[in-house]
């Protein structure tokens, strides 16, 4: 009996792993993101954007006559899992490109596999600076692109905005202790010091703990007149409301990680007056974006956030590359690398996207502010 069990389990594993599912003629792309675990909420945003784009394309006849199929790969925002997923994607020759990964560390972990196997990837959300150095194979070809700006750009932008538009003098920084939060914070603090802003406090938090009052109490003691929240909206909302509770009622500003209506829903009144940078501003987007906004709201019953918008565009860019260059990994890469001037760029809902020699997008940043429970455009930085 014992023997039977082991054999059955081993065989089941081996057979299942070796089996190659056969499908009809379709174009396959993968979307690697977090669909379970603590980051699943963000992964859900990405999934919504990609789904909408792919359904639109398929409804319009697909890419070069072939229907597009998305393989959802759960990589949990976990580097190890990402690498496994990357190997799975790399191995399936029918998958011609990847939208993902969600988190920078996950993306970095997947890169060596993509580079070796030659899989083009576009990440809509991974903003870490290190990706720019790690995305070239031995021949110097870039395989990983992103239609989102880097942490350092955004951090610097925010420092300038805080100084020039918001006019704060003493800022405190409260950052999430992960790749995103630290990358953003470092850029912000560096630029702030250069501009002569007084950084009076830096505190960190980790995801998961719902209580931020000890750090906020400490920050309050340093009496800042503005606080930069370098992290995501889930925790940001808790921080905003707890700050209000302990009487730390100062100007708050955050980066694209805050660009989600859930921030207002969770933080309520405490979110009022929060300034948020975003790569995507509905009012600045073209008319075709308005259709996307309406479709999204109708489908998911929530407003578009930058992750969904970027994911929508990332899928769009990848599918355009497939249409123009054919369903071939190397040709797609070449096409993407060729999108290196504004003229050759992609006009999506999040604005114009084109890539520099590191695969990074040059996109403008916009600023929104929370007013009466809505996110409205704020004064932009000239």
């Amino acid at each position, binding site marked *: 009996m014992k023997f039977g069990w082991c054999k059955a389990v081993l065989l089941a594993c081996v057979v299942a792993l070796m089996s190659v599912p056969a499908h009809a003629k379709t174009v396959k792309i993968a979307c690697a993101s977090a669909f379970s675990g603590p980051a699943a909420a963000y992964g859900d945003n990405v999934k919504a954007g990609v789904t909408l784009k792919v359904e639109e394309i398929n409804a319009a006849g697909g890419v070069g006559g072939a229907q597009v199929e998305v393989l959802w790969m759960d990589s949990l925002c976990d580097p190890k899992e990402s690498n496994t997923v990357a190997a799975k994607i790399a191995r399936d020759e029918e998958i011609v490109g990847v939208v993902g990964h969600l988190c920078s560390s996950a993306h970095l972990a997947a890169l060596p596999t993509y580079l070796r196997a030659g899989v083009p990837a576009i990440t809509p959300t991974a903003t870490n600076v290190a990706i720019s150095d790690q995305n070239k194979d031995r021949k110097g070809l870039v395989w990983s692109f992103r239609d989102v700006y880097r942490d350092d750009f955004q951090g610097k932008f925010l420092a300038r905005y805080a100084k020039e538009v918001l006019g704060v003098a003493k800022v405190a920084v409260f950052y999430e202790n992960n790749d995103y939060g630290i990358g953003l914070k470092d850029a912000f603090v560096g630029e702030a010091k250069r501009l002569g802003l007084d950084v009076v406090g830096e505190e960190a938090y980790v995801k998961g*703990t719902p209580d931020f009052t*000890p*750090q906020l109490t*400490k920050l309050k*003691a340093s009496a800042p007149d503005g606080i930069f929240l370098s992290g995501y909206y889930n925790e940001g909302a808790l921080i905003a*409301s707890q700050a209000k509770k*302990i009487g730390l009622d100062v100007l708050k500003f955050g980066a694209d990680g805050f660009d989600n209506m859930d921030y207002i829903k969770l933080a309520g009144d405490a979110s009022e007056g929060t300034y948020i940078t975003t790569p995507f501003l509905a009012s600045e987007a073209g008319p075709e974006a308005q259709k996307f906004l309406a479709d999204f709201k109708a489908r998911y019953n929530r407003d578009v956030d930058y992750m969904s918008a970027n994911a929508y565009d990332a899928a769009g860019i990848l599918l355009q590359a497939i249409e123009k260059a054919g369903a071939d990994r190397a040709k797609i890469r070449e096409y993407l690398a060729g999108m290196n001037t504004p003229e050759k760029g992609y006009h999506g809902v999040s604005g114009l996207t084109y890539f520099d020699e590191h695969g990074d997008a040059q996109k403008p940043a916009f600023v929104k502010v929370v007013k009466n429970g809505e996110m409205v455009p704020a004064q932009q930085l000239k």
Partner: protein
Amino acid sequence: MLEQLLPQLVNGLTLGVIYALIAVGYTMVYGVIELINFAHGEVYMFGAFLCVTFITAVGMPFYLAIVAAMGCCALIGMFLDLVAYKPLRKAPRLAALITAIGMSIFLQNLAMVIWGSRPLPFVQSAVPAYLNETALSFSGVYLTWLQLFIFAVTTAMMLGLMFIITRTRIGTAMRALAQNKTAAALMGINVNFVIAFTFALGSAMGAVAGILVSVYYNSLYPTMGYVAGVKAFAAAVLGGIGSVPGAMLGGIVLGVAEALGAGYVSSLYRDGVAYAVMIAVIIFRPSGLLGKAVIDKA
């Protein structure tokens, strides 16, 4: 630096009381069947979600929804015991631990499938408005009615629990079971019933903790049970696992250590300070703060 001390102590106390509430569920189950019920954090999470669901979908008033969620979680607790742990009573201890972990994964993902993965705000309209008003404010400390409510509920529940354990028949049976399961069975105690009752009681308390936390932070999400559960487990062990007052004390010590760690050491090492305090306490008091010393008799 010193002007921070009082506010930080209050922060730590609030956090600690919440840990204590969850830790009690751990410690009760552990005291009776020596099982670390890792799924307890998930029951806590279910408590919060069920409460919100009762308010929004059924339209129950706040306090009634709390009671209903407590009842449902008690049932979940008993169900857990029935399907997952009862068949393993005679198996090695670690088998039950692995089942507990499996159950925890299952319940967390079940919640994700039912309620989605994005965090929900608590239904503020259902929460009595006075709870969010400041009750006391002195020297940099702001206490809301909700915080006082949490303190009061926790204290009341602890006292109630102590009463049940020390003064009632079922409590006596629980203590007897903790001492010696076989002997208790021989004395005519219905072992399975008492264990189920323990799970129900612990789970109901976990549900209350979940609801209070989600009201306090105005946020509930499927993975909230994991971190809270781990911290509460640490608190239970710190206090001396199996001891109800120990869980309370352990939770508060852990919470205060965290707050002071973040305030005075480094916010980067906030959890680190909590764990370091825990390790130090256990090394110097090898059976926790209020645990009974284990004497290995020859």
